[in-house]
């Protein structure tokens, strides 16, 4: 039996319009870590090997390419590394379920303002924050990794819709150039 060919939802495409760039990202392995009642200590011990701690709600912690992102009550996604042996938590592979898009550039925050009903400007949503929110009609996790750098995690099956909506927002914003008061 020959090896199966692996494909991402968007085959790594990228697009620059105006001052923002959209691209499908490869963030490596994604593992859901859901802490059982009373499991917090054991989980903390298991995460020590990565130098990570469970993140506060609506935030993420990062160390040496490993990232732990809050995604719900007593739940976080470990990204970029294989999950170590963890006592005290349910561990579920989520790698293939998500398509991760990076949106970067000076216009990124204005693009997101077209689709996300949240204040994502820097003072309200600083670097290191992560939220579960909506991208138009879709559930997403949005991570802020830099002043002009976001990651948007959406369901893999909806990747084309997410791409389309972001692209449309980018193009409408770029077409406005010079039309602001």
């Amino acid at each position, binding site marked *: *039996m*020959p*090896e*199966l*060919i*692996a*494909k*991402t939802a968007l085959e790594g495409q990228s697009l620059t319009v105006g001052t923002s760039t959209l691209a499908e990202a490869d963030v490596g392995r994604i593992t*859901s870590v*859901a*802490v*059982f*009642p009373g499991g917090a200590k054991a989980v903390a011990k298991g995460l020590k090997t990565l130098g990570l701690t469970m993140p506060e709600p609506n935030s993420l912690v990062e160390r040496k390419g490993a990232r732990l992102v809050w995604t719900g009550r*007593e*739940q976080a996604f470990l990204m970029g590394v294989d999950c170590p042996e963890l006592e005290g*938590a*349910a*561990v*579920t*592979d*989520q*790698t*293939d*379920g*998500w398509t991760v898009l990076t949106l970067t550039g000076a216009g990124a925050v204005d693009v997101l*303002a*077209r689709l*996300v*009903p*949240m*204040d994502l*400007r820097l003072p*309200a949503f600083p670097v290191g924050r992560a939220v579960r929110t909506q991208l*138009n*009609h*879709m559930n997403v996790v949005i991570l802020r990794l830099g002043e002009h750098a976001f990651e948007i995690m959406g*369901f*893999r*099956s*909806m990747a*084309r*819709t*997410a791409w389309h*909506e972001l692209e*449309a*927002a980018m*193009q*409408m914003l*770029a*077409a*406005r150039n010079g*039309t602001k*008061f």
Partner: protein
Amino acid sequence: MRIDGKGLIDRTKPVRFRFDGKDYAGYKGDTLASALLANDVRLVGRSFKYHRPRGVLTAGSEEPNALVEVVGPTNQTPNVRATMQEVFEGLVAQSQNRLGSLRFDLLAVNDYLAPFLSAGFYYKTFMWPRAFWEGLYEPLIRRAAGLGSLSGKHDEGTYEKAFAFCDVLVIGSGPSGLMAALTAGRAGADVILCEESHALGGRLLSDGGTIGDQPAGEWVASVVAELQALPNVRIMARTTVTGAYDHGTYGALERVGLHKPARPNLPRECFWRIVAKHAVLAAGALERPVAFENNDRPGIMMASAVRTYLNRYGVVPGKRVTLFANTDQARGVARELMAAGVTVAAIIDPRPDASSVEDCPVHVGAEVVGSRGRLGLSGIQVRKGAEIIEIETDCLAMSGGWNPTIHLTCHMNGRPRWSEDLAAFVPMEGAVPGLVAVGAANGSFSTHGALVTGHAAGLKAVEALGRKVSVPVPEAEDMPYRLKALWAVDGKGRAWLDFANDVTTKDVKLAAQEGFRSVEHMKRYTTQGMAPDQGKNSNVAALAVLADATGRGIAETGGTTFRPPYTPVSIAAMGAGGRAEGFAPQRFLTSDQASRDWGAPMIEAGLWYRPSFFPKPGEATWRESCDREVNLVRQAVGVADVSTLGKIDIQGKDAGRFLDFVYTNTFSTLPVGRVRYGLMLREDGLVLDDGTSARLGDDHYLMTTTTAAAGLVMRHLDFVHQAFCADWQVRFISVTESWAQFAVAGPKARALVNSFLEVPVDLPFMGVAPVRIGGVDGRLFRISFSGEEGYELAVPTRYGEALFRDLVARAETMGGGPYGMEALNVLRIEKGFITHAEIHGRVTAHDIGMEKMVSAKKDCIGKAAATRPGMWGPEREQLVGLKASAPISAGAHLFVPGTEVHRETDQGYVTSVCWSPTVGAWLGLGFLKDGRARLGEKVRLVDHLRGLDVICEVCNPVFHDPEGEKLRA
């Protein structure tokens, strides 16, 4: 007529545009209204009901008359206010609501029929004969009704939606708004300043004057420059705040591209949702007309509009202007016109004690009682005591005082307060939490009052935000506002209140006379305030006339409710991006491209797109393909993508206990490596969903749900967990998107599956095992939804497309191939398996013959409710199979042969049907009263919609392999 040296238009940039097929020239900065007036075009539209000639009345968004259609490459937009539409090179507009040309509108005959067309005309006239309604009256009324026309095509223009957040939202950029924005902006607060017009400054741009030691225009420019330089201030011009909603949310419509030629991707409009901690309503005030006989001729305008056209656009709408006004403020326009060299024929002031010292004739204690001029004003009649004076004039500027723009303060049900001093409604404080009305919007009509109240509101917001600032308030005029309320001049003829909907003072009096004395009833009877301007020009005057007619005071009469939006908002803007496929996200399978490559038509299943069937050359209908695919599964092997089924990974020491609680049957006893079918009830005892759950480890299960209920079940599990057993050792998460899963079914299924596995496995029926496929870890389930020996092979999603293409290729070599949703449906009906067509939310476990699956040994969600009387028994409709030799339909109803067909004799209904190539008959699943006791009986199936009337045999729902030998093979 254009006046040299006046106005804020850019005379270096001429613009050509077209109106009603004729080319005109204007300048950048003109509105369509100002440019038409500059070209001496006074007649711009016809009125709604009487088709009276109409001209521009105002210079703002409240315009009731000058509504035009703008024709662009993607859109034909009706009811565009010419007073708001900026001219641009190539703009094409046309007048509306006419039959024939604008000058000779054939429907103007309505005006001569006016004595018959008073308020309530429709209600009284079209009552009889009844038969005439559909054939004659309705088409006639529909032809005559409505204002603009639509293209009848989809709106393919580009629209945008967006969200914004701020500390302080300032609505309006007149003196009060600029002062509030400056105060909050200098304090460092996050400010959004919205201005409806394309230029900031509000009335300061029209009325001039001085602020501090600067001319008003210079002060505006300096404040705007400072605000623009502040990084914490965002200025949104051409943006109308249209509604105030809960929690400090405001709707706003921005005209992004409507003032320039269309270009790709440039939104026409953007609908904003702005969330503000504090809001300052600085929307100014609207000048109100006076009702007198024939006060609607082109050339009769609001005094403030004449002033705006003069000072902002350098346009005078006439050569001999008259002024009819009851305030001192309005006199300014006459003086400015004279200073610009325009003749002012007379000032008519109804106040007997008003000053008569002006550089033109002044008639104090006088009223305009009539006008003449067919397509435009040529003269007026003035009554002064017993004397009637004829005055020749082609432009009458009128003013009956001002109404504060209080609309937004009423959007959350706040009622305004009547001020006797101002003879106007003013906002109630706190009517919208967090919103403060200032300046003219709050009844402070002087520039000084505007600056002071704007500053105070800005300061209040700044302090609430914990900031500090000191901003001096510049000096400005503080003229007292002194008027004699004048709503309507006594007279016999028709005097217009609501220009847009053709409502006269007579109509309001008639309403009162006929018993519609409440302001809400009067509004509906006369349609006053129900036109595109929503009564901005007429509400207060109409209720004043009503108050007079019913012998009550205005405060006692009260007003109607202002609701959002303040100005019309296009549905296209509110639903931006949502047209056609934009309506909902699209979900695509990994096999999507492969299925399309093979010519499969895709159908929507929820948000998913799934292949219906895979046509082969020579197959003319879907049935031919479907029958072949069914046979191929029954005789060889078929492959179908079933990744859309919901998959939920459940872990923890209490995972089995949790499943026992949500399923009717027991899962804690399921051995590792085995799969069990499970039934789930809602709390009310009706069936929620069915599916299989596999035990992957001691504390590890994988639940599958139907495609339709995947989200519903996840939500249900979350609710049960959080509400009833939050402390249990159980955690679960959706893995629907993580796995691509393919059904492989048929006598050759095992051979096909094993050809893919590194180590072949011999799974028992309802077994599960980890497998390796081409170096990839996967899972193999032996389950069947077809009645054949069936497997489901799951791999991480990224390998889905490859596995599907490889599976199909091998299946074809073995005499099989892919099968689509149609064949999948036939296969399951033949086997009597249910889907959400059967478990549609009104059936119980008993109805579908699964009452034995509700374990007696344990409790579960829905169990108690399922034992209520009426939830089980022979009186209920029970699942049966139906067999017929003629086509039958889902949705048909069942009757006892020989009885009458009506509601009372209904015995049940059909949920799923198919032609079964296996059985060689039409098969159906349906629900029949006491059905399980009636196997072998005949029933009559009737479908009035499709004209079917067929005798069917009632059968066991399992037609194919009832012993289950094949799937256990």
